């Protein structure tokens, strides 16, 4: 075990058991070390189990085989040290923007004046000043995801688990949100595990990309994707485009396999 790793995933298997039908091996023999304050992307075709791996680290699913350590301790349940952001936002629709951001702070037992102040600071940070009293149904997709990110960051988790967080957004909003996420991450570095099937997104955001194979999900390769800077301008640079190509080829093979598997 790497002494520097904050999250250690060791020989993890996971079987998906649908209510009807045969059990399916979703993850097979996954091992992965993640360093503190690292931005790691899990990249793979749909159905490769990348979200399942994220949920296992989050403690939302029981670990059946292998082990997952966070700060040296085995994961047993969800906790406020690991904040999660979902693709479909998972905001409480009956709470306003402020109510959603306050929720975690209430559960953490912060005194009222402090949590009000903190909630406002995070609402301002994600650019939702003026929308504090809006309900999620009154907001655009991008604004909903900003609210969800503010809610998660407000409780200051050291690890941020992101499950295709920009997958439900339109292309323009997605690229704005990517840049903003990088800004936030650079300002207050956290360990991020970012699940995506978008190769360019993975290369742009992450420092390392773990490419996963089609079902059963395995870690096929881990690719360094560090660039000297993370301006949106690098998207057109030669090295960036080459990196995207390299990863795209790996993912494409797996996507084809995944299609054949479901087709047969």
């Amino acid at each position, binding site marked *: 075990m790497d002494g520097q790793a904050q999250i250690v995933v060791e020989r993890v298997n996971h079987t998906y058991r649908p209510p009807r039908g045969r059990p399916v091996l979703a993850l097979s023999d996954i091992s992965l070390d993640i360093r503190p304050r690292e931005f790691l992307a899990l990249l793979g075709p749909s159905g490769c189990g990348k979200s399942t791996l994220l*949920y296992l680290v*989050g*403690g*939302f699913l029981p670990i059946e085989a292998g082990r997952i350590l966070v700060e040296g301790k085995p994961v047993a*349940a*969800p*906790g*406020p040290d*690991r*904040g*999660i952001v*979902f693709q*479909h936002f*998972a905001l*409480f*629709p*009956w*709470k306003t923007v402020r109510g959603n951001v306050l*929720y*975690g702070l209430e*559960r*953490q037992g912060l005194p009222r004046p402090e949590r009000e102040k903190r909630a406002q600071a995070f609402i301002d940070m994600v650019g939702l000043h003026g929308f504090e009293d809006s*309900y*999620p*149904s*009154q907001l655009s997709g991008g604004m909903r995801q900003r609210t969800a990110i503010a*809610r998660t960051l407000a*409780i200051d988790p050291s690890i941020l688990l992101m499950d295709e967080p920009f997958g439900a957004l339109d292309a323009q909003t997605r690229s704005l949100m990517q840049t903003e996420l990088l800004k936030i991450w650079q300002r207050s570095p956290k360990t991020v595990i970012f699940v995506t099937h978008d190769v360019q997104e993975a290369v742009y955001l992450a420092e390392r990309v773990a490419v996963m194979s089609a079902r059963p999900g395995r870690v096929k390769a881990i690719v360094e994707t560090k660039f000297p800077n993370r301006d949106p301008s690098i998207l057109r640079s030669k090295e960036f485009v080459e990196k995207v190509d390299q990863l795209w080829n790996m993912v494409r093979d797996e996507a084809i396999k995944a299609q054949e598997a479901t087709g047969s």
Partner: protein
Amino acid sequence: MENVAKTAVRYLPIVIVMVAWEAIARLNLVDTLALPPLSKVAAAWFDLMRDGELVSNGASSLYRGSAGLLLAVLIGGTLGMIMARCRIFDMLINPLVELFYPLPKSALIPVTVLWLGFGDGSKILLIFLGCMIPVTIGAYNGARGSDHALLWSARSMGAGSFRMMWDVVLPSALPELLNGIRTALALAFILLVSSELIVSQRGFGYLIGYLGSTGSYEGMYAVVLTVALLGFAVDRIYQLLMQWLLRWRD
């Protein structure tokens, strides 16, 4: 001004029925014993109000109705939510609910009287049993639809089991639960009046039966109309409450 006109048009059919009622009775098109003129019914209503009969009987009906309904909402709602979240509980209770569902609850009137006598207790029990079914089913269906991502979010932010029930499962179930309660509200009126009509010495149903059997048909109509108007008003107020509670929906 436009709104006033719209409202007037909407309630026009009621006015037409009222005028027709008065005319049919006055012109002796039907026996005035079977259908007394509306004006006489109104007069009888004022008499019943003045001597306090309507108020005192109404009060005991409202007490029975609201007590039974309140119990049904509290117990049925809790039961439905627990059933939705706990497999074993679901397996134990669901068959009972399904068995009880098609039973006409009015068939239980003699049973509840046998258990609790002629007073308030038997009426409250009957309304509770009848109203619990739609409330339980509403809470159950609503709670089963709660999004696991919401539950997970709440848990990762530090909510325990009870907190998740209160903070996530209940509000998720609210739209269906409130619809179930609306059905229960209508059912409460039906069960209340029919049980009082059959076995009671107080209440709206008793008053209708008593006035009918003593030949005071104007008074009988007055009480029937009172119950109808009250049911309509309560449902309207409930709908406003529902709109307010669900204001977060788009």
